[in-house]
C-alpha cells in the first residue's frame, strides 16, 4: 500500500477505474505485470505518463497469452500503432476488454478485430482459413478447409456479399452464449 502513491496519482487511478472494468488494486497489479516484463524499460513511476511501449515479442510471452493461437492478433488488435507495440494504456485496455465484466458488444468488436487478420473490416475467406489453421494446427486438408469456410460464410453471411461484416459477426455472436465466458482471460 505504501508505494501505491508513487506509481499512479489518485487522479490517474480514478481515470483508469472509470475507463476500464478494473479496480485500483487490479490496475496496480497489471502495472506490476507490465513492469516485470521489462523492468529496465518500464519505470515504476507512472505519474507523468511516460511514453513507453513494449514490443509484441514480450507481450505474447506472458503466460496468459503464450499458448493462445491468436496471441499475435490479440496484441495487434489492441495496440494503438497496429504493429503490436503496447503501451501500458493499451495493455490495460486489452485485459479490460478480456475481463469478465466487459459487455458482449465490446467483446464482439474486439473479437472481430482479432479474427480479421488482414484488417479490411471484413472477415473474408482468407481470414477464416487462417483462423481454422490456428484452431486445428493445420491438421485439415485444403479441401476440408475450403468446405468449412464456405459453410461458415453461407451460414453467417446475411447480406450475401460473400464475407462477414461486423453486423453478421455480431448477429452470430448473439446466438453463441458461450462466447461471453470463453472470450475471457483471467489475469
Amino acid at each position, binding site marked *: 500500500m505504501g508505494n501505491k502513491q508513487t506509481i499512479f496519482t489518485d487522479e490517474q487511478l480514478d481515470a483508469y477505474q472509470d475507463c476500464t472494468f478494473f*479496480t485500483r488494486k487490479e490496475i496496480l497489479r497489471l502495472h506490476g505485470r507490465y513492469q516485470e516484463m521489462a523492468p529496465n524499460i518500464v519505470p515504476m513511476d507512472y505519474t507523468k505518463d511516460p511514453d513507453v511501449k513494449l514490443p509484441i515479442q514480450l507481450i505474447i510471452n506472458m503466460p496468459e497469452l503464450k499458448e493462445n493461437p491468436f496471441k499475435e492478433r490479440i496484441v495487434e488488435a489492441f495496440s494503438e500503432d497496429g504493429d503490436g507495440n503496447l503501451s501500458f494504456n493499451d495493455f490495460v485496455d486489452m485485459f479490460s476488454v478480456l475481463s469478465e465484466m466487459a459487455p458482449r458488444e*465490446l467483446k464482439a468488436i474486439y473479437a472481430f478485430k482479432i479474427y480479421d487478420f*488482414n484488417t479490411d*473490416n471484413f472477415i473474408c475467406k482468407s481470414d477464416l482459413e487462417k483462423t481454422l489453421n490456428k484452431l486445428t494446427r493445420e491438421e485439415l486438408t485444403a479441401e476440408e478447409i475450403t468446405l468449412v469456410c464456405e459453410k461458415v460464410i453461407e451460414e453467417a453471411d446475411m*447480406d*450475401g456479399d460473400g464475407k462477414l461484416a461486423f453486423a453478421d459477426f455480431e448477429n452470430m455472436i448473439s446466438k453463441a452464449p458461450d462466447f461471453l465466458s470463453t472470450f475471457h482471460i483471467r489475469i
Partner: protein
Amino acid sequence: MTYHYNEAFENPDYHYSETLEIDRSRERNPSFHQNRHDSSLDDDSLYDSYEGHSGRGQRNQDYPMAIPMASMQPGFRYSHSASGSAVPNTNPYGNPHTNPSFEYEPELAYTSPSTFHAMDGPYMRRSSDVSDGGSFSQRYNRRQADLVYRMPSSLLRLDSKAETYNEDKYKQEEKLIKNLASMSSGERVKAIQKTPKTMKEKRDIRNKVLMEKTKKSVSSSTQINCCTQCMYKTALSYQRFKNGLSEYLHLLQLWQKTLKVIGGKFGTSVLSYFVFLKWLLTFNIFSFLVNFSFITIPQFIASGPNNLSFNGLELLTGAGYFKKTVLYYGFYTNSTISKTENNSSYNMQLAYIFTIGIYFIICFFSLVYSMAKSFRKNFINPQTYSGSAVKLLCIWDFNITNEKAVKLKQSNLSTQIKESLSEVTHEVLNLSLKQRIARIAIHLVVWVASLGIAAACCAGVYFLSRNELQLLEGNKSELENEAATLVLPIVVSLLNLLIPFCFALFGLIEKFQYPRHQLYATVIRNVCLKISIIGILCYYWLNDVATSEKECWESLVGQDIYRLIVIDFIFCLLGSFFGEFVRRIIGTKCCKKLGVPEFDIARNVLDLIYTQTLAWIGIFFAPLMPAMQIISFFIIFYVKKVSLMRNCQPPRKVWRASQMTTLFIFLLFFPSFTGVLSVMAVTIWRRTPSKQCGPFQGLTSIIDAVSGWIHILDSYSSSKWVVWIYRNLIGSVHFFFILTVIVLIITYLYWQIIEGRKMMVRLLHEQIINEGKDKMFLLNKLRALQTSKLDPPKGEQQERSSSSYQPSRQAALQMTASLERPFGRNGRDFYAESSSAGIPEKTGLAPADEEGHQPGISETLALALRARQQAEWEMEDDDDEDFRP
C-alpha cells in the same frame, strides 16, 4: 443502442481532421451515411457535411460550378474499381447496410498495412489531436482557419455555409458532452467503459465530461449555497467509499488463482462446475452467518451444560451427544431470553421463525435474480446456432493457457470439424417409417424403465425408513441403534451413485439425433431420481415421523438429514477416488482403450444440487446445517480439484457451459428450492410441533407463534400497521389471489410482446437478405454498364463528349488529369466528394438529367444510387422503429 450512442463521440473528431474525413468517405462512404440514421445525436448536420465538402472539392478542382457531378463519375469509378480489383478489400460501395454500428472501424483501416492509402498520417494526427487534449473550441478554431486558408475568396458563400455546418457540429459535440455530463456518474462510467476506443481517447472524453461538470457546478454555485456543495461532496465520498468497498469485496473472492489454473487447464466447461460450487458456498456462508448470529448466539446465552458423552460415532450419525447441542431444533428454548433486568428481551420463537423465513425470502430473490440474469445473458436468441460458423469463430476458449490443453483442444477441434464435415456429406438420415417407430419405441421403453427404476427406489427407501422407525422402538443397545440409523443414508447414497450409471447405460441403446439431447435426457432422468428420493423422504418425515408421537420429532428429522449429508459427502469423496483415480489407473495401466477419464460435469453438478436441497430442508430442523455444508463444500472443492488435476483430461465434447449453467440454476430453483419451500410450508402451517422440546413446544402449529405475536401487537396502537399488513396482505387469501392474477396477466403480456418481437426479427432478417440480393444485383448492373461504356473505341467517346457543351468537356479533361495522379489526395478527394454529392441529393442529380449527355449511364447510375439510398433509409427506419421501445 447505447453503443451507437457512444459512437457519436467519434464522429465529430472525424469532421475536424480533414485528411481523415476524406479518407474515410472514400473508404466507406455509404455506411457513413447510414450512421446518421443510427446515432440519434448525429443529425442532419453530418449529412450536410458532404455538401460542404463536395463544394470544396469542386473548388479544389477549379471547376465551374455547374458541372454535373454524375457525368464524371462513371469514368472515374471505373478506374477506381479497376485499381480496386487488384486489392480485393476495397469495396467501392461498401456494404450499404452492413454495419452502421461499426463506425469506428476506419481506425483499423488506417493501421492496416494492406490498405493502399497512407495509413500513418491521418491516424497519428488524429490521435495526437486528441491527446494534446485541446478543448473542442480550440480545434474548432484551427479548423476554421484551415478552411479560410484553403478557400478561394470567390466562394465565400459556400464558406459561410461550411461555417454554419461547423457551428452545428460544434454544438453537437457540446450536446454530447453535456449529455454525458448529465448522466449519473455510474451510468457515465459505464458508457465510457463500453466505448471501444483506446485508453487515451477514453480518458480524454472523461476529462472533458468532468470539466463540463465542474464548469456547470461552478457556474451554478454562483447562486447557491453550501447545501448542494455538501450534496456533491457526499456523493463524491460515497463514490469513493463504493470503490473502496468493491475493492475489498474483490479481495474476498475465494480461489481466484485456483479457478484461473483450472480454467487454464480444462477450459470453461469444467470451470463452470467450480464456479457453481463456489456460488453455492456463498449461499451457505450467508445462511450460516444469519442463523448463527440470530438463533445460535442468543441460545448460547441461555443454554445449560451438556452432560451427554461423546464417542466419535456421533460425527457420522449426528445423534447422541449432538442431540443436546445447538445443532438441532430440539435444543432451542421457547422462552424469551433476557439477561438484564430491564425490559429488553429476545423472543426465541419469533427469532427462529423470522430468521429462517427471511433467509428463504432472500434466497428466493437471489435465485430468481441470478436465474433471470443467466437467462438474459445466455438465451438472448432463442434459435441457437449449432452450425460451423459458431464452431469456428466462437469456439476458442481464451481461458486455456496450458500448452498440453491447447494442443488437446486443437486436435479435438479438428476431429470435431472432420466429423461435422462427414455429417454434411450424408446429412439427413432418411429413416423409414419402421425405423422411426422402432426409435420412438426404444425411447418410450427407456423412459418407462428409468421412471420405473426411480419409483422402485422410492418405494424401497420408504419401506426401509418406516422399518427403521419401528426399529428405533425396539430395545437394543444404544450403539446398535445408532449404527442401524446409518443403513438408510447409505442405501440412499448407493442408489444415488449407482442408478446414474444405469441411466448412462441406457444411452448406449438409445440413438439421439444430437448429442445434446442425450445429455438433456440423462440430466432429466437423474433429476427425477434424486428429487423423487428426496420427495419420498420428506413424505416420510412429515407423515410418519411428525405424527409418530415421538419425543422431539424435529430433531429426529434433523439427525436424518445430517446423516444423509455426511454419508453423501463420504460417497462423493469415494466417488472421486474410485470414479476418477482408480479409473485412471485402469485406463492407463490395464486397459489402454479406456484412456484417461473425463470429468463428468453434469453428474457432479447434480450431486451438488442434491446436497444443497437437503441442506435447505435441514435448515429448519438443524439451524447449523449450513456450517456443515460449508465444511463439506470446502473439502469437496479441494478434493475435486486435486482429482481433476491428477486424473482427468479436458472434456472432448462441446459443453455449452453457459446454457448448462442456466439449466442448473433453473433446476436448483425449480424442483429443488420450490420443493423445499413447500416442505417448509407444510411443517410450519400443518404440523404440530413436539410437546416437550424446541422453541415452539406447546403450540398447535408453528405459525401460531406469529399470530399470537400479532395478537399482542394489536393492543399497542403504535404498531397497528403491522397488524394491518399481516391481516390484509399476508394472512388473506384474496390478496394472493389478486396478486397471482396480476402476475399471470403481466406474464401473458410479455409473452405476447416476445412473440411480436420474434416476428419482427424474422421479418428484418428476411429484409436483410433481400437487401443483400438487391445490392448484388445493382452492383452487377453498374459494373456491366461501366464496362460497356468503357468498351467502345475512343473516337466515339470523343465525339459524344464534343457534342455536349464546353465545360463538361473541360471537366472530363480535368478528371483524367486528376486520375493520372496515382491516387494522390486530390484524386481521392474528388472521388469521395463526387460520389457523396451524387448519391443523396436530388439536386445533385438533377443537372445530369437536364443536360442529358451520356444519358444512359448517368441516369442509370443516378437511379441505382437513389434506389440504394432509399432502400438503406427504409431499412434503417425499420430498424430504428424496431429497437425503439
